[in-house]
């Protein structure tokens, strides 16, 4: 009989208080009880011991097999996980019990966690359910509501065991491909048919792919198994093969990835010659560059958009711990040292629901809060600092948010006397998986994100992350097994699960053999195809030589890491998979990896003319300035920065919040090697609103901004690399592909001009939503074409870095760079309700001259801010708020003041300089565009005047600070 242990607070409970505040005034009281359902037989004595171990006597009391005594309430709402969903608290509790009593939980025995929230208030059952849904996500959690009466009648809540029961005999099935094109299309779109006629979910294989598969099997003289077809769908997915970037596009036969992105890196590396700092680019899970003689730093940025739309918490946490594995999977295993995030959301104040079929989508605010929390738990629990990140808002992210997650890693240049970034599985090596077990979670994740989100999207595509399981193997690998030389190769199990990771590693040696029945499962009843492609999290695959296997297994056992040998690497040229002795898959690696038919994509790109604003410049811009610093895209999001640990690992140097005013920084710096002043600077940039006018310039501006931000803190063009993350929409439309091609062209042009290579990249091509709006109208919402450029620069000595906040009253304020009438797609025009047409353009030659001058003059600067979204006006306000000092600015120009203040012309900085260094600084800037525009004021007043003395902005730091913080002050 299962036992239910309830633990409640005996002192005021913060969690209950927070819930009460959230529920609103009609709820008079909230109590929260933690429940542990132990599905194993124990004596009463042992149960008391268990309850003691699961509670803290200073704060809590417990009840065993009866309800915990609570104060008066009207409704009891229990939230627990659905069967098969990762329950970390349950797992930890089981470990505590095993340790405490020296018992072992058998296969079907477990501990399940849940929570009861008791509320006092005059609300209906439906409203109580709504409260439940505000605390839990029905996709992964079960919500049970009982009235006081029902609770009394039943003597409390019921014992619930969310055990998975798959009443199903797993088997391999043959899929008949000798069918009509129409049926082939349907098979590709909806998936393999189950016995009851329902479909398994999208293979996302188009007709030409299905035909290629059919023809291949015709040659083999047999039909594929379901395992083979599912594996091909994973390996050939847009998500894994990046078919759009790889395909011929118009006249670009080699595809835009090779032609623009990879070629840029190749050309830059060739031009740099001896000064080339790239170590490993594109091939591996992350890109790697030289830090110094002894160390390599790696970087990788990913997206987790579709999962985050359905389950923001689960999508975001699995996103961040997933990209951590891209670091551990670099070379022989790099240590993650910095996490970063970038969120594109719709306005969280927009409460109008969207529907997918009959299901309401989560609101933008719910998505924002869930995603922020997911990265909080994932990053903080993993012990990786998160100093860098941004939030960007546009209503077109309402159907699909974009959730960027990135990780920087550190690895010695050599491990065991050999280059650490090289790895190769050897014939005869064992295929070993470490970490979590396999369940149905995450099945069809790779093919799912290659599809438009519509009512057929499976909820199994989401899952909860388990950062501690990952932390255990990550430490064991990076801090121990790597340096002991216990394996030859390693890779992450990401999209496509072991079907992709094992087959990828098999390419290193020429083949692999896998026994699917050896793969450890969360619960019985999984079909072989599910085991092969499941994306259950926190797993990595290694190739371990037979003579090292015992030592490897012993080390992992002592670190609490589950390790399983599932097969062997071979040189058969094939990927062979068996299940209970029966052939499940036998495919040539060459067909698996290169058998997909080449496509040639056609593009068009029609530029649209937009309206220009017709208002005159207001005589007084004080209110406009206040509005401009409180916009979603310019205001403080320090509530995010404060909840992400950004000091762990001891390398903190320039953090996410700068100055006394704690202004959100755009560039951060860490010292990755303790005891060394060598630094790594990181930034991110995107300008999706510019895509409405011109994607070529959109990309150019993102590149320039990401580079400029690094220069602003003290980086150099000589040691700076980039990452590209394309998040596009409707990539089956020629117009969208035309926009894409132009953006990729800019990626080549500007990276090569600056000499800043791409080291890693990723794309997500279908960020569209099809459904209904709150009035029942069919809507399709596509994200604006979004390109995130992440930059990483090596800083020789962080002691020379400069931060963005002015430091001393009386210092001179200069603008560096030229300001043009370039407000198309700007934050200011968006504020006015227009798009405009004059998008900022980057003049690379001028920019390089300026950046080199700034590099040389860095020692003369007291502060340096890279001008970004919102232009000069927003930058000046940010600097004033950060410094807690005033500013007196004079605009020496006859251009209309609002355009001058909010133009987003690129390649500009605001700097402050000690008046004693005036001559020296101006001499250093000789021949470059710069202007002295004002002084830092002691009195905290913030004023902007016209040359004739007319005051157009009259504010002060405290007011600016209030406006800067008001937008998210309730978050």
């Amino acid at each position, binding site marked *: 009989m299962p036992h239910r242990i309830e633990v409640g607070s005996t*002192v005021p409970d*913060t969690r209950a*208080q927070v819930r009460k505040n959230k529920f609103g005034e009609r709820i008079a009281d909230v109590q929260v009880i933690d429940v542990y359902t132990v599905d194993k037989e124990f004596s009463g004595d042992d149960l008391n011991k268990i309850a003691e*171990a*699961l*509670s*803290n*006597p*200073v*704060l809590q009391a417990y009840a065993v097999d009866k309800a915990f005594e609570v104060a008066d309430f009207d409704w009891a709402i229990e939230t627990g996980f659905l069967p098969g969903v990762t329950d*970390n*608290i349950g797992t*930890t*509790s089981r*470990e*505590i019990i095993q*340790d*405490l009593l020296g018992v072992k939980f058998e296969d079907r025995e477990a501990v399940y966690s849940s929570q009861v929230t008791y509320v006092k208030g005059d609300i209906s059952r439906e409203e109580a359910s709504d409260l439940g849904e505000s605390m839990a996500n029905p996709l992964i959690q079960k919500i049970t509501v009982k009235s006081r009466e029902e609770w009394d009648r039943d003597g409390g809540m019921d014992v619930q065991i969310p055990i998975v029961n798959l009443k199903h005999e797993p088997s391999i099935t043959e899929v008949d491909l000798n069918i009509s094109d129409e049926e082939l299309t349907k098979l590709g779109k909806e998936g393999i048919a189950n016995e009851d006629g329902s479909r398994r979910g999208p293979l996302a294989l188009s007709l030409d792919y299905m035909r290629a598969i059919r023809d291949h099997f015709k040659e083999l003289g047999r039909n594929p198994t379901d395992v083979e077809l599912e594996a091909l769908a994973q390996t050939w997915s847009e998500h894994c093969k990046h078919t759009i970037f790889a395909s011929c596009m118009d006249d670009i036969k080699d595809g835009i990835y090779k032609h623009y992105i990879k070629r840029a890196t190749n050309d830059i590396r060739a031009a740099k010659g001896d000064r080339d700092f790239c170590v490993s680019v594109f091939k591996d899970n992350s890109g790697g560059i030289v830090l110094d003689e002894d160390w390599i730093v790696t970087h990788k940025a990913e997206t987790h958009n579709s999962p985050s739309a359905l389950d923001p918490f689960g999508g975001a946490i699995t996103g961040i711990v997933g990209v951590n594995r891209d670091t551990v999977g670099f070379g022989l295993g790099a240590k993650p040292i910095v996490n970063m995030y970038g969120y594109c959301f719709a306005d969280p104040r927009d409460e109008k629901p969207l529907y997918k079929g009959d299901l309401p989508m989560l609101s933008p605010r719910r998505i924002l809060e869930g995603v922020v929390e997911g990265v*909080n*738990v994932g990053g*903080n*629990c*993993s*012990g990786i600092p998160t100093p860098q990140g941004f939030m960007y808002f546009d209503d077109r992210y309402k159907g699909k948010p974009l959730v960027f997650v990135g990780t920087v890693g550190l690895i010695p240049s050599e491990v065991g006397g050999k280059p650490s970034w090289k790895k190769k599985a050897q014939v005869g090596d064992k295929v070993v998986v470490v970490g979590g077990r396999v369940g149905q979670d995450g099945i069809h994740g790779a093919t799912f994100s290659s599809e438009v989100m519509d009512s057929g999207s499976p909820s199994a595509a989401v899952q909860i992350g*388990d*950062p*501690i399981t990952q*932390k*255990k193997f990550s*430490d064991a690998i990076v801090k121990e097994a790597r340096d002991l030389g216990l394996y030859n190769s390693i890779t992450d199990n990401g999209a496509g699960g072991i079907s992709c990771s094992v087959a990828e590693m098999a390419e290193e040696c020429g083949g692999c053999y896998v026994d699917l029945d050896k793969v450890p499962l969360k619960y019985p009843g999984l079909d072989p195809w599910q085991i092969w492609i499941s994306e259950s999290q926190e797993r990595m695959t290694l190739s371990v030589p037979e003579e090292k296997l015992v030592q490897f297994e012993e080390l992992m056992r*002592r*670190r*609490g890491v589950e390790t399983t040998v599932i097969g062997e690497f071979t040189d058969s040229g094939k990927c062979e998979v068996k299940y209970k002795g029966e052939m499940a898959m036998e495919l040539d690696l060459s067909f698996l990896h290169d058998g997909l038919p080449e496509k040639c994509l056609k593009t068009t790109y029609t530029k649209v003319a937009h309206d220009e604003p017709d208002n005159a410049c207001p005589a007084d811009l004080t209110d406009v300035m206040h509005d401009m610093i409180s916009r979603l895209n310019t205001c403080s999001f320090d509530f995010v*920065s*404060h*909840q*992400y*640990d*950004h*000091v*762990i*690992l*001891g390398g*903190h*140097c320039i953090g996410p*919040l700068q100055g*006394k005013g704690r202004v959100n920084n755009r560039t951060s710096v860490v*010292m990755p090697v*303790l*005891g060394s*002043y060598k630094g790594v600077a990181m930034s991110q940039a995107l300008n999706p609103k510019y895509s409405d006018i011109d994607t070529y310039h959109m990309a150019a501006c993102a590149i320039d901004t990401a580079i400029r931000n690094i220069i602003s803190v003290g980086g150099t063009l000589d040691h700076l690399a980039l990452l590209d993350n394309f998040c596009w929409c409707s990539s089956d439309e020629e117009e969208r592909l035309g926009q894409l091609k132009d953006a990729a062209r800019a990626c080549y042009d500007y990276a090569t001009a600056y000499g800043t290579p791409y080291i890693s990249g990723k794309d997500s091509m279908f960020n569209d939503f099809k459904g209904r709006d709150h009035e029942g109208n069919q809507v399709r919402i596509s994200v604006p074409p979004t390109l995130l450029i992440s930059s990483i620069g090596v800083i020789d000595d*962080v*002691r020379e*870095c400069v*931060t963005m*906040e002015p*430091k*001393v009253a009386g210092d001179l304020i200069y603008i560096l760079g030229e300001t043009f009438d370039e407000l198309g797609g700007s934050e200011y025009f968006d504020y006015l309700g227009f798009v405009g047409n004059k998008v900022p353009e980057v003049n690379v030659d001028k920019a390089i001259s300026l950046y080199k001058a700034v590099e040389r003059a860095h020692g003369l600067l*007291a502060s340096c801010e890279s001008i970004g979204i919102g232009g000069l006006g927003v930058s000046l306000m940010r600097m004033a708020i950060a410094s807690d000092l005033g500013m007196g600015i004079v605009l020496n120009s006859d251009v209309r003041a609002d355009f001058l203040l909010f133009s987003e012309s690129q390649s500009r900085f605001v700097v402050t300089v*000690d008046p004693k260094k005036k001559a020296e600084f101006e001499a250093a800037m000789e021949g470059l565009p710069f202007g002295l525009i004002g002084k830092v004021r002691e009195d905290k007043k913030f004023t902007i005047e016209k040359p004739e003395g007319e005051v157009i902005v009259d504010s002060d730091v405290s007011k600016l600070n209030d406006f800067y913080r008001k937008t998210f002050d309730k978050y």
Partner: protein
Amino acid sequence: MKPKVIVMTGYGINSEMETEFVFNEAGAEAESVHINDLIDGHKKLSDYQIMVFPGGFSYGDDTGSGNAYANKIKGNLWEDILKFIESDKLVAGICNGCQIVANLGLVPGFDGQYGKREIALRHNASARFQCRWVNLKAESEKCVWTRGIDMLHMPVAHGEGNFYAKDDVLDKLEAGDQVAFKYVKADGSPADGEFPVNPNGAARDIAGLCDPSGKVFVMMPHPERAPNFYNLDNWALLKEKAKREGLAVPEETPNMQVFRNAVSYFSQ
């Protein structure tokens, strides 16, 4: 002789490397050791003079921060730890380590009653993880770890750092000179519970405690994450001001004194 420091790791402890680093900088010989290596006898606790539980998220804070790790110790290493404390050695817990040591009942340890839980670290009053910079004032005469320290500036990074104990326990802690650190304003005046000066709502602004011997010490903030001047949140401002006055800036912060105190305890 360099004292040997055992820095405990495993199951989600995260801060062992920077903890090891600061002890080595302070002149000790520090080593990170996985808890299982102590349990199965690969390492012996008696070989060390200082035992440190560093920061992290052991067991993901499931069932309460520090609880599961403390249970593992109680079940496997309890006798060794008691022996360690009795042999004039030092113990520290920082952040998650503080939560672990509190759950082990090594602090407050009134009247030698090690093992009795009397203090707890509750969820922050904001109910959210807080990573912020705080000012601390050293309050204890007897605490070995805070000797010669007046005020320090360092980060906190925790979700459950809200010190709680019954009033009589708090009174006894104060009367017994066991309060090692309190959160204070930049000018050294009391935080009086005001957020974010007191970042978590801790009773009586308590940031750190010690046992009656002054040798077992816990604190929620992180001195090991800001041992270097360029780790500070305001180094750029301090440096620019010093530059204007023609002064040099230090390389090390006063936070290192915590670790230097521990090391010099064994060289006296």
